[in-house]
């Protein structure tokens, strides 16, 4: 593993309990991401996915451990890391252009109004909102609001895009269209994307790797599923991929049963620093994608820290 663009290093987040003690929602998480990679985290509600994302965004700080981005530890929010919020978080008193321009003018503070608006317009057009520039968020549908959120995030040309269940509040058709848009923009811009979801199909369609997270409290990264789908993929084609159902069944099986019992089952064999990489449907590890020390383990797992 040569490129550790984002490196999550042993982060733990503890919250105080009403009884006066502390519970760790998750503990000792390790993960490395390449530049230009799309990683999805999937897990049940309450496992701390959003907290992981907030730590990456700099909106929350880990109780222990650190996150290194591009060689520097995260110390608060940064314009290098844009967030697409689940609730879209648009400013309701601003128009579509106003919302995007707010982000643009925050990044390039000495730009003129014309420059800012021209730049914002480029990204409004990119998400297909041309013609709705002067509408306020209350006049937009849920899908259009999230498009504005996407345009705002991409407009500041961040190094990393963080998405917190961005499509979960949308109907299935709108969600599909927006997933296509995100996938397209991701490929055009070569962004590094970190996304949280609880939708298995979404994770498989979008991600290069899917990180499976166990249930909280004390959640851990259980496995990393290496997505066998090609880089260029079409929504209506992915179901025909020979390994698609193996991957899907593996993730669903994890979410339904193994996410609860994973920690007990593994016992001492679990090494948080070398989370197992699995390739469902393939007999044995076929590609050595890691030059990190590997751990021999049962069930055809290949351990890699990536």
């Amino acid at each position, binding site marked *: 593993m040569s490129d550790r663009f984002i490196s999550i290093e042993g982060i733990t987040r503890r919250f105080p309990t009403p009884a006066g003690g502390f519970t760790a929602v998750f503990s000792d998480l390790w993960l490395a991401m390449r530049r230009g990679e799309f990683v999805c985290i999937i897990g049940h509600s309450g496992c701390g996915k959003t907290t992981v994302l907030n730590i990456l965004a700099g909106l929350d700080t880990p109780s222990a451990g650190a996150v290194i981005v591009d060689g520097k530890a995260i110390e608060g*929010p*940064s314009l290098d890391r844009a967030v697409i919020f689940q*609730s879209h*978080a648009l400013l*309701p008193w601003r128009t579509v252009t106003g919302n995007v321009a*707010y982000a643009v003018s*925050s*990044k390039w503070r000495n730009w003129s109004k014309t420059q800012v608006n021209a730049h914002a317009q480029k990204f409004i057009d990119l998400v297909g909102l041309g013609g709705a520039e002067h509408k306020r968020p*209350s006049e937009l549908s849920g899908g259009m609001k999230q498009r504005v959120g996407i345009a705002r995030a991409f407009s500041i040309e961040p190094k990393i895009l963080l998405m917190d269940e961005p499509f979960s509040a949308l109907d299935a058709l709108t969600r599909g269209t927006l997933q296509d848009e995100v996938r397209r923009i991701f490929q055009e811009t070569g962004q590094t994307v970190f996304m949280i979801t609880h939708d298995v199909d979404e994770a498989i369609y979008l991600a290069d790797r899917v990180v499976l997270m166990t249930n909280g409290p004390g959640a851990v990264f259980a496995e990393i599923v290496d997505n066998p789908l090609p880089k260029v993929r079409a929504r209506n084609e992915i179901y025909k991929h020979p390994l698609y159902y193996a991957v899907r069944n593996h993730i669903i099986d994890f979410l339904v049963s193994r996410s609860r019992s994973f920690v007990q089952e593994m016992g001492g064999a679990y090494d948080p620093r070398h989370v197992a990489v699995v390739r469902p449907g393939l007999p044995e590890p076929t590609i050595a994608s890691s030059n990190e020390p590997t751990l021999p383990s049962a069930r055809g797992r290949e351990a890699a820290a990536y």
Partner: protein
Amino acid sequence: MIGSLNLRAAIVSIAILFAFLLAWHLATRSSGPTQAMDPVYAKLMGATATQGKSPMPGPIEVGAKLWEQLRRPFYDNGPNDKGVGIQLAYSIGRVLIGYLLAIAVAVPIGFLVGMSPLMSKALDPFIQVLKPISPLAWMPLALYTIKDSSLSAIFVIFICSLWPTLINTAFGVASVRKEWLNVAKTLEVGTFRRAFTIILPAAAPTILTGMRISIGIAWLVIVAAEMLVGGTGIGYFVWNEWNNLSISSVITAILIIGVVGMLLDQVLALITRLVTFPE
């Protein structure tokens, strides 16, 4: 159904008004000569004794008085005989000065209280104790320290306008949605820009609601304050006309106070609508 709801409501309103005016007129009209009197004596006694006229003026007298006052609102015949327009101008002037000073103080302090949990807790006991004090209770203290009755009235308006705006500003600022603040944080927006571009617009409807309550209270209090300090103003006018036993003028003044209060409230309501954003 005939016409829109607004039209029907207007018809009912007008009907109520006429019913009221009619009842008023009937209750206060003359009941005819009461007893035979020497005409010279009758002249001395006035209509109340001779014609069975109610001591309360009827709607026609009040209407005539109102017309007389509105026709010449700005005459000035010395300290105790000024047009109602001049008196109103004094009152509105005092209210606006005291009110604007209060807003200038309340909004920044409200921001501080709303943004800082420490200041919120630290200032809370003072606000809780000062808020329920009747603004008129400050009057003697104001007169003693300021030594100017007109400025004291302004001070009383200042004090009573302060609390609703301060408390609403603090509440509005403290309850700005976390997601909007997070947007500002992820965009590395500085404290000042955040205060003006996120918190102010987000809290503006709540702040304006507080300002609207403040102007209402200020207009309530100015009448009482001017009755106390005297000299000028609509409150003094009411008290002066009471001393003149001109009940018609008292009634017209009450009406005018109501209308001006409504207009002040409507102005603030209009501004509130301008800053309110649909979600």
